[in-house]
């Protein structure tokens, strides 16, 4: 479903993605971890071309993402993206946030879009907040709205860029619960996170990045209990003891 072929990207002189080869089949839940600056966020931001690559190919659902001629709007409509900082639209209500893309990208009529939006808000447990503005919600609630906003487009892929890193500890659980539910629905997911509990519980595969390279991949059990590389072992011990 998602394929990286010899992908390279530089920010100036910094080689942020160094020859990445990766295949993510439909329905897989992939957790990407690694130290900060390792290129993990950049990697998933390339999947919907929030970042452009300079070399190589990225193919999503048979669409070459790296190709300028590809229909970016259509591609992005199939991919939900959840940001660390939520980025809800502050001038709209929760319901309007979730309805915006279905109405304007999919051209659904308002009633239908509202029905879908309410379903998705129910799915993330925020039915009663539909009339509120983002500023009135807690961080955890805002992130759940952001997930509902992504789901409202019925995407085939959901990308999460450190979805719980900006949250107070007591709110992390509610967001992870929503994500675990998504896994059970068979959603294809790429999650940049350090939440080992989440990774162990639901990930099919863990990918460890350092210095723009994929250093190691494996099942969560293999990766966390028997890391093959010293670099990964060091990283795991750090996030365990912090």
């Amino acid at each position, binding site marked *: 479903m998602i394929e990286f072929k010899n992908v390279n990207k530089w920010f100036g002189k910094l080689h942020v993605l160094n020859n990445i080869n990766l295949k993510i089949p439909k329905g897989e839940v992939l957790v990407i971890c690694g130290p900060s600056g390792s290129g993990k966020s950049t990697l998933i931001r390339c999947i*919907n071309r*929030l970042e452009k690559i300079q070399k190589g190919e990225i193919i999503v659902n048979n669409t070459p993402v790296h190709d300028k001629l590809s229909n970016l*709007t*259509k591609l*992005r*409509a199939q*991919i*939900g*993206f959840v*940001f660390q*900082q939520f*980025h*809800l*639209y*502050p*001038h709209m209500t929760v319901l309007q946030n979730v309805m*915006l*893309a279905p109405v*304007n*990208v999919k051209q659904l009529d308002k009633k239908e879009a509202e029905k879908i939006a309410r379903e998705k808000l129910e799915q993330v447990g925020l039915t009663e907040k539909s009339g509120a503005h983002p500023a009135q919600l807690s961080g955890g609630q805002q992130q759940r709205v*952001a997930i509902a*906003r*992504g789901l409202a*487009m019925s995407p085939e892929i959901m990308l999460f860029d450190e979805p719980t890193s900006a949250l107070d500890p007591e709110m992390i659980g509610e967001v992870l619960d929503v994500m675990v539910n998504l896994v059970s629905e068979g959603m294809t997911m790429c999650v940049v996170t350090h939440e080992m509990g989440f990774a162990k519980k639901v990930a099919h595969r863990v990918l460890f990045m350092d210095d723009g390279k994929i250093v190691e991949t494996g099942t969560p059990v293999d990766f966390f209990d028997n890391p093959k590389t010293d670099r990964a072992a060091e990283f795991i011990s750090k996030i365990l003891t912090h």
Partner: protein
Amino acid sequence: MMGFYFSRLVEIYPFFLKGLWMTSKIAFISLVTCTLLGFILGIFRSSNNIILKRIVGVYVAFVRGTPFVVQIFIVFFILPEWGIQLDAFPAALLAMAIMGSAFICEIVAGGIDSISRGQWEAAASSGLTLIQQLRLVIVPQAMKVILPPLVGQYVLLIKDTSVVSVIGVMELTRVGWVTVVRIPEGLMVFSLVGALYFSISYPLILLSNYLERKMAVQ
């Protein structure tokens, strides 16, 4: 003596009303065209397209760095050299549009730049086109930053219409000049001219103050 002039002034008040009408007309058309052009230029100025950004930047710098009077003369006296002959009224409107759009461009670009990248990225990620991102997500938020200085700029633009009197447009200031030749009571004549300008701009000053307070609260 003063009373005599005052009665003459009463005689020629239709002339003042005509001037006020002309000033209002120039002001209204200019505010509309400057706003439209200013938003388009402001969006270009805050875009990621470096060439577009630079071109608009040079335009804005040129307009801001030269006196409006000189710009009017360029439009009125120099364009005809290149075969573009304009009457005083359209020349005045063109000069106003050039000047006003540059100032509004800066206000709009400042407002758009105040919106975080994340808002663009969220909107883009959900599949909205660039124009939809601007129309639905960015500009509505930027308006809070744009609106108070924009209305303030409107007040400045209304007052700047007085400068087009130099090319003979019969607006309020020109009416003042012409009148003072016949009625040599400068203080009275120009007090009246000033009062008439004030009657148009004061409501906007109040609006600008109101918006500033309202946006500050939010």
